[in-house]
């Protein structure tokens, strides 16, 4: 069953590449980004999402990147490859591994990237794409930023849902 705006989102416990364990609770707002290493859409939007993580950290927003892709068929999305990537790049957010794909299924995530914004009570406030154009860095993840600004003001985002755009999540067969 897919989540709708206003629903309480499922909690989870996932490990990141540095040995930390994360859940969907404990922040004034939490951004979940289902992403991966090999999808051009996820890569094109990555820097914009990382900027959001940096810009909103002081306001108590936690951004969690989650890779749920089947690493058997897509070795570039393996946990080892995730660790390599975080080691090579400057990541301002933890990179979580959803090895069983249970979290991606619970959120009904479709593509990479697929963005979910939860408020402090874990209610879904935004779901969709970071902004309107993966091809234009100037778009600046503005839809995600607008949603976070609204949540931090205690308001409903004016644009609560957009169509996520990207590569399909690689489900295990």
């Amino acid at each position, binding site marked *: 069953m897919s989540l709708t705006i206003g629903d309480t989102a499922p909690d989870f416990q996932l490990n990141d590449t540095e040995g930390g364990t994360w859940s969907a609770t404990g922040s004034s707002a939490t951004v979940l980004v289902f992403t991966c290493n090999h999808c*051009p859409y996820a890569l094109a939007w990555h820097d914009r999402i990382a900027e959001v993580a940096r810009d909103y950290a002081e306001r108590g927003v936690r951004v969690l990147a989650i890779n749920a892709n089947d690493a058997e068929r897509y070795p570039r999305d393996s946990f080892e490859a995730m660790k390599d990537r975080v080691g090579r790049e400057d990541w301002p957010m933890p990179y979580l591994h959803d090895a069983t794909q249970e979290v991606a299924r619970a959120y009904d995530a479709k593509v990479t990237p697929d963005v979910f914004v939860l408020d402090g009570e874990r209610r879904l406030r935004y779901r969709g794409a970071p902004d309107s154009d993966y091809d234009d860095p100037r778009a600046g993840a503005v839809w995600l930023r607008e949603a976070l600004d609204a949540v931090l003001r205690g308001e409903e985002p004016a644009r609560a849902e957009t169509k996520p755009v990207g590569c399909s999540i690689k489900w295990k067969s």
Partner: protein
Amino acid sequence: MVREAISELGLPEIEVHTHEIVTEDDARDAGFIGSPTILIDGADLVPAAAEEQIGLSCRVYRRRDGRISPTPDPDDLREALERAARAEVNR
């Protein structure tokens, strides 16, 4: 994207054939490294890097300005089509 470039360049003599890769077996048989792959006279518009893996996936392209993209740089495509058209004339 390819048809658009052909139209812009006024090269109606260039034919476009599309081939859908549906299964992992299809990918293996075709040596397919991801979608979209554009072959011009049999040659990949952007030759695959050594680490590319065969399979059903999206391809990662890099535009001339360094941006990562799911599609090749339009200028790379236009130039390759023009080269192909010139080669055809010289045959």
